[in-house]
C-alpha cells in the first residue's frame, strides 16, 4: 500500500515498520524535520546522547545485546564526522547498525554550504554500504534496504544520508517487503564440504573448536547448536574475545579465551591440535601470533558467512561458506546419520594433555597487602554478580582483558566489547545502549579510568533517562596497556602513559547528580560492590588498583602460541626487534 507523506515522516514510519523502538541521536539544522516528526509520535523513543560517538556506541551496545539492529540519527557535517569512529568500530566487529545523517539540501550539495561534509565519501570505507538519497520517492525503499543490508549476511553498519529538502518534500511511502535486491548472501553451507569436515571430525585425535563472534551474530539458536555439538563430541572448545558466551564458561569442555591474552591451555591446544574447527572467527592477528608458526600440524576447517574471511590470513583445508546456525544444523545431521563417531580414545588422551596444561593455572594470583589487585577486583565482581541477570560492557585496555579472563559468560549477547578497532570510550555509551534494551537488568561497564574519560559526557544521558548503569573503573592512574608495552618493549621509558590530574571521580559523579563510590582497600571491596549494586541509579565506582600490574598470559608480538609469557619473571628479552614493529 502506497501512502503520501513527507520524507521526514517516512523516516519515522520506516523505523516503526522495521520494528525499531529506540533511536540514539543528537539534533542539528539538517535533521530538524525528522526531529519534528519524532516529536509528533509515541512509538519510538529518542535518547539524546551528549556526543554523536556516544550515539553510535550506544546503538552498538543495544544491537549486540538485543540481537536487533541499532539506530542513530545525527545531523550533517560535524554530526556525521563524529559518528565515524563508531561506524568503523561496528564495521570491524560486524555489528548491525543504521545511521541516519542529515545533509544540506540537494541544490546546495557541493557548494561548501554550512555544515556540509561529503558524508557518503567519508563513510564509504567504514560502512558496509551507504546511500545518499536525492529524491523523496526513493527514500522508503532505501531505508528498508538499509535494514536488509545491515542485518543480512555478515552484519555491519550502514548509513543513509538524507538532504534536508528531501525530508521536507512529499512522496510515496511503501511498507517493507521481503527484499528483492541483488544482495542475498548464501546461508546454507555446501554439503560436500560439511561431510568432509564430519569425516575429519570422526578421525581427529586432537580436535579443537575455535569459535568467534560469528556464532553470536548468527543468533541464539547457533549457540544452542554449538553447545549440543560440543557435548555430543566431547571436543574441547575455545573462543575469541568476540565469541565469549556462545559456549558457557561453566561448561565442561571450555578452555577459556585464546589469543594474545588468552589462557595457556587454549593457546597450547591451538598450537597442538590436529583438527581446528573455526566457527565464525576470522584468524585475527591477536589470535594467530606469528603466522608461520601458527598451529603448524593441523587440518583447518573454517565456517564463515563472508568468503573474504576465508584464506585471508590463514590458508584452510576445508572452507565452508555459510551461516553458523545453518551449517551446524547440517553438520549435526550428517554426523548423526553416519553414526555419531569420534575417535574417543584419542580424544581422551588429548584431554589428559589439556588437563596438564590447565593444571598450570595461568590465571592464578594472590591478593596480598592493602592494595587491590585488578584481578581480585574482577573476581569479587564476578562472585557478587554472576547470579544476576547481567550484561557486561568494557572499555579498552588491560581491564578489558582481565574482564575477559576473570568474568564468566554463560550466554550469548551478554558481553559487549570493542575487539577489532579497540576503541577507548566504547564501553560507557555501549552500557547505556544495553540498558535501554534491557531496562530491568544489571548492566556493568568494566572500565579503565583513561578510557572512561573519553566519553564521560554520557553521564548526562544516563541521568536524563534514569539508566542505572554501573561504571566499574579499575583506576591505575595509568594508560595501563600502553604502560605494559613500554615496560616490555621500550626499556621502561613511560612516555606519556601516566594520567596526571585525574578528576575526583566521586565528585564528578555528584556533579552530574549520580552516585560515586571510592574503594581502595581490599577489605572494603565486597561491601562497596554491594553498595553499587543496591543503588538504583548510575554509579561511578572508582576502584583504586595496583598501578603497575601487567596482564598475563601474553603472547608477545612476533611469537608463537607456545611461547607465551605467564608472568613478570618471563619477560626479560621476550620481545625481539622484529616483534616490536608489530602492534
Amino acid at each position, binding site marked *: 500500500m502506497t501512502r503520501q507523506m513527507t520524507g521526514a515522516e517516512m523516516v519515522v514510519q520506516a523505523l516503526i515498520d522495521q520494528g525499531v523502538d529506540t533511536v540514539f541521536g543528537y539534533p542539528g539544522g539538517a535533521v530538524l524535520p525528522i526531529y519534528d516528526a519524532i516529536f509528533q509520535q509515541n512509538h519510538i523513543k529518542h535518547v539524546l546522547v551528549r556526543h554523536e560517538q556516544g550515539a553510535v556506541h550506544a546503538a552498538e551496545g543495544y544491537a549486540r545485546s538485543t540481537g536487533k539492529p541499532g539506530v542513530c540519527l545525527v545531523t550533517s557535517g560535524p554530526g556525521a564526522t563524529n559518528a565515524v569512529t563508531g561506524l568503523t568500530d561496528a564495521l570491524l566487529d560486524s555489528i548491525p547498525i543504521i545511521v541516519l545523517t542529515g545533509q544540506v539540501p540537494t541544490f546546495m550539495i557541493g557548494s561548501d554550504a554550512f555544515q556540509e561534509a561529503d558524508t*557518503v565519501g567519508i563513510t*564509504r570505507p567504514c560502512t558496509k554500504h551507504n546511500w545518499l538519497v536525492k529524491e523523496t520517492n526513493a527514500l522508503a525503499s532505501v531505508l528498508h534496504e538499509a535494514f536488509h543490508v545491515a542485518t543480512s549476511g555478515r552484519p555491519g553498519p550502514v548509513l543513509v544520508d538524507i538532504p534536508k529538502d528531501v525530508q521536507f518534500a512529499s512522496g510515496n511511502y511503501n511498507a517493507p517487503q521481503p527484499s528483492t535486491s541483488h544482495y542475498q548472501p548464501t546461508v546454507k553451507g555446501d554439503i560436500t564440504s560439511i561431510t568432509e569436515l564430519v569425516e575429519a571430525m570422526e578421525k581427529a585425535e586432537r580436535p579443537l573448536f575455535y569459535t568467534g563472534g560469528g556464532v553470536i551474530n548468527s543468533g541464539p539458536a547457533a549457540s544452542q547448536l554449538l553447545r549440543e555439538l560440543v557435548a555430543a563430541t566431547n571436543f574441547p572448545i575455545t573462543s575469541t574475545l568476540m565469541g565469549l558466551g556462545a559456549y558457557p564458561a561453566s561448561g565442561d569442555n571450555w578452555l577459556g579465551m585464546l589469543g594474545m591474552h588468552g589462557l595457556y591451555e587454549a593457546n597450547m591446544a591451538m598450537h597442538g591440535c590436529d583438527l581446528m574447527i573455526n566457527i565464525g572467527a576470522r584468524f585475527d592477528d591477536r589470535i594467530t601470533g606469528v603466522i608461520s608458526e601458527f598451529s603448524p600440524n593441523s587440518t583447518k576447517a573454517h565456517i564463515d558467512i*563472508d*568468503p573474504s574471511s576465508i584464506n*585471508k590470513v590463514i*590458508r584452510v583445508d576445508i*572452507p565452508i561458506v555459510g551461516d553458523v546456525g545453518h551449517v551446524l544444523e547440517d553438520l549435526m545431521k550428517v554426523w548423526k546419520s553416519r553414526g555419531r563417531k569420534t575417535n574417543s580414545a584419542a580424544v581422551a588422551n588429548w584431554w589428559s594433555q589439556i588437563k*596438564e596444561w590447565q593444571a*598450570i593455572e595461568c590465571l592464578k594470583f594472590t591478593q596480598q597487602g592493602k592494595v587491590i589487585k585488578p584481578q581480585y577486583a574482577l573476581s569479587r565482581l564476578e562472585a557478587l554478580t554472576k547470579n544476576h541477570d547481567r550484561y557486561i560492557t568494557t572499555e579498552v585496555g588491560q581491564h578489558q582483558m582481565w574482564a575477559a579472563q576473570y568474568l564468566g559468560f554463560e550466554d550469548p549477547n551478554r558481553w559487549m566489547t570493542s575487539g577489532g578497532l579497540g576503541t577507548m570510550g566504547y564501553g560507557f555509551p555501549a552500557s547505556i545502549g544495553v540498558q535501554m534494551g534491557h531496562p530491568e537488568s544489571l548492566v556493568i561497564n568494566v572500565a579503565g579510568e583513561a578510557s572512561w574519560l573519553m566519553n564521560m559526557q554520557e553521564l548526562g544521558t544516563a541521568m536524563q533517562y534514569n539508566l542505572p548503569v554501573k561504571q566499574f573503573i579499575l583506576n591505575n592512574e595509568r594508560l595501563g596497556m600502553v604502560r605494559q608495552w613500554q615496560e616490555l618493549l621500550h626499556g621502561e621509558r613511560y612516555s606519556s602513559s601516566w594520567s596526571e590530574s585525574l578528576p575526583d571521580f566521586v565528585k564528578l559523579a555528584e556533579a552530574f547528580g549520580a552516585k560515586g563510590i571510592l574503594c581502595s582497600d581490599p577489605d572494603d571491596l565486597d561491601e562497596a560492590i554491594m553498595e553499587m549494586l543496591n543503588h538504583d541509579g548510575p554509579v561511578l565506582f572508582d576502584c583504586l588498583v595496583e598501578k603497575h600490574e601487567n596482564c598475563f598470559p601474553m603472547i608477545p608480538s612476533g611469537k608463537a602460541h607456545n611461547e607465551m609469557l605467564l608472568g613478570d619473571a618471563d619477560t626479560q628479552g621476550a620481545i625481539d626487534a622484529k616483534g616490536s614493529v608489530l602492534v
Partner: protein
Amino acid sequence: MSDLNLKKGTSAKSAYNLRPNFSDIVERHTLAVMVENEPGVLARVIGLFAGRGYNIESLTVAEVDHEGKLSRITIVTTGTPQVIEQIKAQLGRIVTVHDVHDLTVEGPSVERELAMFKVAGDGDKRVEALRLADIFRANVVDSTLKNFVFEITGAPEKIDAFADLMRPLGLVEVARTGVAALSRGI
C-alpha cells in the same frame, strides 16, 4: 609438561584445491566486475584497491546494460594467488557488485585496448611513421602538415610495441583507454 609428538596434519580436499599451495609468484589477472550503476560505485571499487594496497594496472568502466542499470568494470591487477583470491572476495563483498569474473582463470579470453598517438615530424620520419602504422593497422584519424594522430586497437602488448616504435619518430602524446576483455566462446 609432556612434549607433543605431532604428526603432520593431512590436508584434505578443499574448494581452493585448484591451488593446493598458494605460490609467492606474482600473477597478472584480468577481472570483469559487474556492478549496479549507482553513484559512487566506482569510488567503492577504487577505494577498496587503494585502502587494501592492491595494484591496479588498468581500469575501464562503462554502462553495458542501460535497462538493468549494470556497468562493467574491467580491472587488470597483479598479485600472488592468495592476494588475487582476496581481491575477488573483497570485490564480491561490495553490496552493489553483482558478479566478479576472473577472466584469466575462467578459460580463454580476449583483451583489447584502444589508444591514440600523436606523432610529430617531417621528412623520412613522417614517412616511416606512416609505414609502421600501416603494418600495425593503426588508422590516421587526424593529420596536419606537422603531425598525425593514429588510432590503434589491440592487445596491450601490441600497443606497447607500437609506442616503442613511435618514440624515436616524434611521439608527442598518448591516450589509452585501458583494457576491455571478454571470455571466448559461450
